[in-house]
């Protein structure tokens, strides 16, 4: 028996040892692509260690391309133009690229491996993306499932962003979740508040990042964010502004409204906010405040299923109903639409807007899917 045990130990050790050594050698010589240069926008050049994905090579040099899936090749946020050195298109990229994108050498940077010198182009704005260390200054319940998180920026200690942009929150391992994930959250604070970032985070049942935020995070904890990212923002125009949001889609709207407040434009703004029952409504005081201060601004909350004891006297029905009614009463050919929230709601509202004559290229949205 002892002999058998000894033999077993010996054999397992021997086989695993030999294979491990082989793999280490292979890692050293086969998967080692040495130092590679990445030339960015014909002006900047960085040195990275080859063998990793372009996305992580860039982030190791503090250049952060947007990524919502953490490099698994499912979100397609990490697109960038690679003129040289990326090798042929991979089957894992094809489903996410249109024909025009393929022709203009757009690739998914999380799938492209750095094996030689590369030449890439990324929007200048991405250089402004930074990683921030921050401390949680405040956690506040907005509704039963949405929390407001206020982050005080520590290092760097201020952020410059456009109203409507988002940041990526980096979660830490907790409980059964062993890894860290990154999720996008729109900034709700006004652009002039550069030392803090407000996020409104709705609990997604079983969601990795939102459960962490709702159940683990406490005030004074330190968290990291990466940003600002995204191109959801106010556009020039003359017609009416129609905003539509639901749930945590409120966040970017608050930031947009704070910006509008400072600029004191003359455009008429109507903001439709969809909720199910009264307990899903929040920020009503703030909205009343905006109504007082911004000329021509109206906030229209609508409940799709008000409960008897809600005592609801406002608009009832799915948000598409008051939206359609309102659009029938105004001149829509110059109107602009801004939408934020679940993809289902957004797409339903976009259909209504187009049906009522709003130009498709004047409808801007950020689906939280």
């Amino acid at each position, binding site marked *: 028996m002892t002999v058998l045990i000894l033999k077993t130990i010996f054999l397992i050790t021997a*086989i695993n040892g030999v294979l491990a050594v082989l793999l280490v050698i292979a890692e050293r010589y086969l998967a080692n692509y040495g130092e590679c240069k990445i030339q960015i926008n014909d002006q900047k050049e960085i040195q990275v260690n080859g063998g990793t994905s372009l996305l992580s090579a860039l982030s190791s040099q503090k250049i952060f391309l947007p990524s919502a899936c953490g490099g698994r090749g499912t979100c397609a946020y990490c697109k960038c133009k690679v003129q040289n050195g990326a090798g042929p298109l991979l089957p894992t990229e094809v489903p996410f690229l249109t024909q025009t994108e393929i022709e203009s050498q757009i690739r998914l940077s999380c799938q492209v491996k750095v094996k030689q010198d590369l030449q890439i182009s990324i929007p200048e704005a991405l250089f402004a993306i930074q990683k921030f260390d921050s401390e949680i200054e405040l956690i506040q319940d907005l509704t039963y499932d949405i929390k407001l998180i206020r982050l005080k920026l520590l290092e760097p200690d201020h952020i410059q962003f456009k109203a409507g942009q988002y940041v990526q929150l980096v979660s830490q391992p907790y409980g059964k979740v062993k890894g860290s994930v990154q999720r996008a959250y729109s900034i709700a604070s006004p652009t002039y508040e550069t030392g803090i970032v407000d996020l409104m985070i709705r609990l997604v049942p079983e969601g990795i990042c939102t459960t962490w935020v709702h159940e683990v995070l406490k005030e004074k904890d330190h968290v990291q964010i990466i940003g600002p990212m995204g191109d959801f923002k106010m556009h020039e125009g003359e017609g009416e502004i129609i905003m539509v949001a639901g749930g945590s889609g409120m966040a970017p709207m608050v930031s947009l409204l704070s910006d509008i407040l400072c600029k004191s434009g003359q455009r008429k703004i109507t903001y439709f906010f969809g909720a199910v029952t009264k307990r899903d409504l929040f920020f009503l005081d703030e909205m009343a405040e905006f109504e007082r201060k911004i000329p021509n601004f109206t906030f229209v909350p609508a409940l799709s299923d008000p409960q008897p004891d809600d005592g609801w006297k406002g608009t009832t029905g799915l948000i598409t109903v008051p939206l359609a009614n309102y659009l029938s009463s105004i001149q829509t050919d110059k109107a602009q639409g801004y939408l934020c929230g679940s993809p289902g709601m957004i797409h339903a509202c976009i259909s209504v807007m187009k049906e009522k004559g709003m130009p498709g290229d004047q409808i801007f949205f950020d689906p939280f899917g």
Partner: protein
Amino acid sequence: MEGLSPWVLFFAAIFTGNILLTYFLGMCSFLSVSKQLKTAFGLGLAVTFVLTITAALNWLVYWYLLDPLGLEYLRYIVFIVVIAASVQLLEMFIERYSESLYINLGIFLPLITVNCAILGVSLFMVIRKYTFIQSVAFGVGSGIGWLIAIVAMAGIRERINEKKIPAALQGPGIALIISGIMAMAFIGFSGMVQIQ
């Protein structure tokens, strides 16, 4: 099994004893990666390639290490380790030396480390006491058999995509029914040679 010619084994592994349709091994990737003909073919090639190489390696490990030392009972764990390591090595090797091979075959390698058809072939070959040449023939044959099955499946699924399927059966549901029918069709070959 001394007597069986490697050729017989080769064809038998493809048709009468198809690893997928007779033994239902390697089902998970068969179901999940059979939506597109091109990818299915790439994966099939990768499986064939890995099957051949791991069958040969595991044969050597079994008959020159495990058997002489009387440690046959370790074969599951050792086979798995050998398969995992060799797939990793292969991936690195292909990625380094052939870009086109990597794109068509290499990126599927990590998907099949855990494919049970691969462990299955290694186990069958030692249980049935195949010689080295027989094992290799059996490995290649099983791989090609798997490739034919998944390519046929992908072809059928590409067609069926455009058809109306009851909501409850869409996706894996109809795929399982199709594989059942394919398996029955393959029984038709069973009169030719029997291996087990």
